[in-house]
């Protein structure tokens, strides 16, 4: 009689991997089933043998070489070169940021800050447009909507739809080149 106890449960029990409630259930089955008890005994016996066997496989010569050992135990030293490299990287980054922020063009009207603000305003307006109306069907409609939504952009004229040039294949024009002597006379 094994009840609902599976082989897996018995192995897990022998290896002490069951939850307390599962363990209780298996133990109740072990109390009445000799087959289960034998199974668990065999698993325990096998576990012991595996432990012994794998431990005995450990060869005393299984050690790192002296050189490898020394390398492992040598703490990576603090180097002035590494410190210098990190400091230089931080200094360059800070200098770059300071330079960009102190340029007059960055803060002036129409400068980087202004453009960023304009772009943000445009996006905000467009989102408002999209929430109230349908999605634009053409690029022209999209540009028109952005311009209508943002008077700042309309003024600056930054957003203009440029018509793509017609893809025509023009034949090569051969101009009669003046002679070298004529060029000299010019």
């Amino acid at each position, binding site marked *: 009689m094994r009840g609902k106890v599976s*082989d*897996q449960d018995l*192995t*897990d029990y022998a*290896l002490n*991997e069951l939850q307390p409630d599962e363990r209780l259930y298996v133990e109740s089955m072990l109390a009445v089933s000799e087959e289960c008890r034998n199974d668990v*005994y*065999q*698993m*325990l*016996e*096998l*576990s*012991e*043998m*595996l*432990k*012994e*066997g*794998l*431990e*005995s*496989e*450990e*060869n005393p010569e*299984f*050690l*790192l*070489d002296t050189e*490898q*050992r020394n*390398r*492992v*135990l040598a*703490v*990576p030293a*603090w180097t002035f070169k590494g410190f210098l490299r990190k400091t230089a990287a931080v200094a360059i980054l800070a200098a770059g940021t300071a330079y960009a922020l102190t340029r007059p063009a960055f803060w002036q009207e129409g400068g980087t800050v202004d453009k960023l603000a304009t772009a943000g305003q445009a996006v905000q307006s467009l989102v408002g447009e999209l929430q109230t109306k349908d999605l634009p069907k053409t690029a022209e409609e999209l540009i028109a909507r952005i311009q209508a939504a943002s008077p700042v952009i309309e003024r600056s004229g930054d957003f203009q739809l440029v018509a793509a040039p017609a893809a025509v294949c023009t034949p090569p024009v051969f101009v009669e080149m003046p002679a070298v002597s004529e060029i000299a006379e010019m």
Partner: protein
Amino acid sequence: MFQSKAKKKSAWVQSALERFERPLLQYALSIVQDLDRAKDTVQETFMRLHTQEQANIEGHLSQWLFTVCRNCALKSIKKEDRYIYVEHEEFEHRKVESVTPLQDMARREQIARLMEHVKSLPRNQQDVVRLRFHGNHSYQEISQITGLSVGNVGFILNAAMRNLRTKIERDEKDEKIIYLAKQAAS
């Protein structure tokens, strides 16, 4: 301050090396099948330990070392593609009291045969068996080391142990047949 921190870390790495050098070499060897390569793998594992903060690893050092060692070993043999995983579909200790020298010898022989059988197990079963019975890791820890789910670890371990038991039983039957044949002949 730098000095004392470095000294502390060095002592920590050294104690880890003393404790886990052999088990890790054994484990790496079971994967890479080459002692020099296993040594390199273990060296790499301990070198990586140097780059870690002690506080982050304390409490699960064994698990961390086995995970890193496994990854390094797999990386090392990846080029040769020697590590072939077989799919999973295939799917309170009883003490021996008063063992006589003869029984002890028989047991040693049995363990030696068992170890041969362990080597013939599918790769994933062998891996889990080693982690369980040599590394003394729980299902949960093996799951974290190998990346398998906890349920799968239990399943593979159960399959491996049943597999080994079948092989041991077959050995015992063969021995009996040989013994009986010898008896009959004499």
